[in-house]
């Protein structure tokens, strides 16, 4: 039986990698992928406790987290496409004007 502590450490590792990805990369698509990594780390945490406490609440919460992640990915990618129509770049450094 794997202790809950190991699952929390795994979630911490994935969350950290996601944070480093968001803070370090210039490519907007990889930043969005790192945000999905962070949400997966949160899901691992929720389901680890749901399994430990033998309740199903954590899994229901995880379903809603996945739902919100799907909605946010769709809208975020819509924004990326709309931005790409103005300036053909994927680097966030170059998107630095509000309107011209």
């Amino acid at each position, binding site marked *: 039986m794997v202790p809950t502590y190991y699952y929390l450490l795994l979630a911490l590792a*994935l969350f950290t990698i996601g944070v*480093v990805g968001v*803070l*370090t990369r210039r490519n907007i*698509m990889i930043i969005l992928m790192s945000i999905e990594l962070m949400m997966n780390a949160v899901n691992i945490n929720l389901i680890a406790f749901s399994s430990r406490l033998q309740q199903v609440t954590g899994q229901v919460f995880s379903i809603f987290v996945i739902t919100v992640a799907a909605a946010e990915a769709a809208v975020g990618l819509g924004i990326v496409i709309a931005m790409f129509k103005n300036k053909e770049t994927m680097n966030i450094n170059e998107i630095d004007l509000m309107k011209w």
Partner: protein
Amino acid sequence: MLETILFYFFATIAVVSAIFVITRHNVVHSAAFLAATLLSVAGIFLTLHAEFLAGVQVIVYVGGILVLFVFVIMLISVERNIFERQYNRQWTIALITTAILVAEIAYGLFRGKDTFNLPAPAAAAAPGAPAAMGNSQQVGFALYQNYLLPFEIASILLLVAIVGAVVLAKRKTQAEESGVVPGMPFSRDS
């Protein structure tokens, strides 16, 4: 024993794939490694006896969100991005800040790691449905009896997201661009 082996197997694949996601130059390679990470997280859910969530993870995350990512990469990827500088100028500060964050959380986890060995409560005391049902059945009971309002709000959220994504990415027709409102006379400035 098997559970421990499976946990280490899926955990190693998840962490290694996640590191590859944030370090590859080619965006499509990053998407492929993200698929590996999401599938191994689904495996982790299976070792935690959350079979319904594992299925939802594969279908929604890998089969929906990741495919959406790959489509958008196909639409807007530019070749020169692979050869440019990949990392921010602030990467040292980012790594230092992340190291501080990780140290804090890891210290908190380490100090409290014995408190996570909570005694499993009796089946009758759990507020979810009683045991001896399948996992999907338990989740279904909880969603439709105790958490019905968040379930309906989530469906409204998805509707809003769909409409928003379509509006954001829609290509304007020629009539809309020239200022003509269909059906209204004298709508174009002459």
